[in-house]
């Protein structure tokens, strides 16, 4: 653990600060996490296609942002040096600049229906201890160009190599951030089972599934859960970062009803989250969309063990009252403010977040989801400075 302090007047290291807010304790200062993955190539003026393909360009760009705009506490490590591995964990078709898109645009997702209703049945027939990885590997050739035409053995070898490449790169990348005194946010990350089904089926067929085969959705997600959790724990231990980021892109109230969340999605979420916590690892629930009506159900998860990331569509100020005594809240400076607002607006919003959501601890200041590629650097500086100006307890 790095003993280096981020600011002179800090009493805790970044790691101690993060651990304290997860336990809902009041640390010395509000910690800050900056998700600069999409923003960095445009700030550093490197070609986006080079940034996603050449690790050395990635490292140069992302470090330059820290040197120009930092410091902050938590390195939000979305650094997919292996596109194949990134596809495996996110289970979405990724469109990369230079490959599928023009050279200087940000990475995007192309959503299309690659999973069929009978795939739920196939999942139910799998062995539980392997189901998550077997299912993902089986689906990959349907949406990921890098695996097209590969037989099962070559596919597995390619995936293993991808994980090795990614792991080695993470270790190399993290060393530098630790030397700066930062704590690394993510030891492993993956799309949660039901969210993955929604992406893989796409919204219209998945909405129909919710009416026509709800039990199968629930059971298939439950079947994937133990191996999802076990694999996450294994990788987090390998990377030595005791946090797993679980993406819940499609289980907000914008996509499914609170009842569907409770009956179909929550059981697998609970299984995964509890297993991860039992292994001494912190789950980070990346909850895009409006989660307000799901918060009561989330309270059934263990207290003071989870980070809840909100993206601006959930009212984080109300969430503080609803669940702030149960989970550490993370967010949520809106992307729109960072792109179109002024430094004063960003400063005011961060001040409000720190005062209201940061009250008593249990809060990490961050953008709502990612920092957009076209955010203004002066707005990011205002965000960074806000924890120094207002964040000390």
């Amino acid at each position, binding site marked *: 653990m790095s003993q280096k302090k981020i600011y002179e007047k800090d009493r805790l290291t970044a790691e101690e600060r993060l651990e304290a807010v997860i336990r809902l304790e009041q640390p010395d200062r509000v910690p800050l996490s900056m998700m600069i993955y999409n923003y960095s190539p445009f700030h550093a003026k490197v070609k986006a296609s080079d940034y996603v393909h050449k690790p050395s360009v990635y490292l140069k760009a992302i470090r330059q942002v820290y040197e120009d705009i930092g410091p902050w506490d938590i390195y939000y490590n979305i650094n997919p040096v292996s596109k194949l591995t990134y596809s495996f964990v996110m289970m979405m078709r990724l*469109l990369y600049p230079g490959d599928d898109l023009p050279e200087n*645009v*940000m990475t*995007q*997702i*192309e*959503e299309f229906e690659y999973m069929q209703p009978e795939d739920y049945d196939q999942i139910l027939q799998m062995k539980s201890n392997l189901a998550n990885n077997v299912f993902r590997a089986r689906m990959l050739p349907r949406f990921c160009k890098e695996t097209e035409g590969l037989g099962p053995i070559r596919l597995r070898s390619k995936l293993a190599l991808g994980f090795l490449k990614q792991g080695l790169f993470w270790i190399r990348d993290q060393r530098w951030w630790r030397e700066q005194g930062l704590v690394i946010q993510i030891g492993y990350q993956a799309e949660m089972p039901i969210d993955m089904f929604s992406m893989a089926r796409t*919204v*219209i067929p998945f*909405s*129909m599934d*919710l*009416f026509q085969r709800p039990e199968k959705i629930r059971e298939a997600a439950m079947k994937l859960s133990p191996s999802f959790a076990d694999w996450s724990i294994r990788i987090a231990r390998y990377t030595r970062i005791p946090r797993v980021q679980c993406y819940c892109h499609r289980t907000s*109230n*914008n*996509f*499914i*009803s*609170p009842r*569907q969340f409770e009956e179909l999605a929550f059981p697998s979420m609970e299984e995964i989250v509890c297993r991860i916590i039992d292994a001494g690892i912190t789950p980070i629930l990346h909850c*895009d*969309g409006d989660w307000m009506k799901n918060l009561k159900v989330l309270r059934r998860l263990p207290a003071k063990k989870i980070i809840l990331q909100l*993206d*601006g*569509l959930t009212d984080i100020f109300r969430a503080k009252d609803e669940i702030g005594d149960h989970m550490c809240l993370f967010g949520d400076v*809106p*992307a*729109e*403010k960072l*792109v*179109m*607002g002024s430094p004063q607006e960003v400063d005011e919003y961060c001040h409000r977040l720190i005062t209201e959501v940061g009250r008593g601890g249990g809060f990490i200041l961050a953008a709502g989801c990612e920092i*957009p*590629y*076209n*955010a203004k650097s002066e707005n990011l500086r205002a965000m960074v400075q806000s924890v120094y100006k207002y964040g000390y307890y």
Partner: protein
Amino acid sequence: MDRLVKFREIFLAFRIDSIDTEIEDLLQTGLSSPELLQACQKCMEEIGKKFEEGAYFLPELVMAGEMFKKVSARLRPHISPGSEEVAGKIVLGTPKGDLHSLGKDIFGMLAEASGFVVHNLGVDVAPETFVEKLKETGAPILGMSALITTAFDPMQEVVRLLEEEGIRERTYVIIGGGVTTKDMVGRLKVDAQTWDAYEGLRIVQSFMDEKEETK
């Protein structure tokens, strides 16, 4: 009408597999296509109200939309062009640089079900294309949806082009999508913003009411 009781039950229970047979049966009994389509639109309104009240969520809207599409595809060829009341025309799309389509498609489906003619231009639409389509169709409403901030500059450019072409005054502009905020109404000089497809429908309906009043 008694003959429509079962149709309503099927529609409001989202029994999509039974809707085709029910339509055929009703047509056999002599019910006209416009009457059936109207019944379908009433069901859509009921579902929309439940969505507004917070009793229904996206899956119900999607199911209703899919059922409406089925009914509409079966009946529309039998309805003479120009006989249906048109609620208004909308040009719709996701601006250049953004490839997301879901939000605008759901809004478009709801608007169609409410009698609007929707010109859906798809995703990654250039600012000039929006303006050309507005001029070509004479549509008084433009809807642009975005999930990433890449779309902000093109949205701004569309508004600028509308002014340059002298059609901003006659065009209501509504933006939507997860990344947009109410603050953008002022910043981009558009008329409205929403995160909710049904609220979007209410807004475009209010635009049309306003247009009627100022006639």
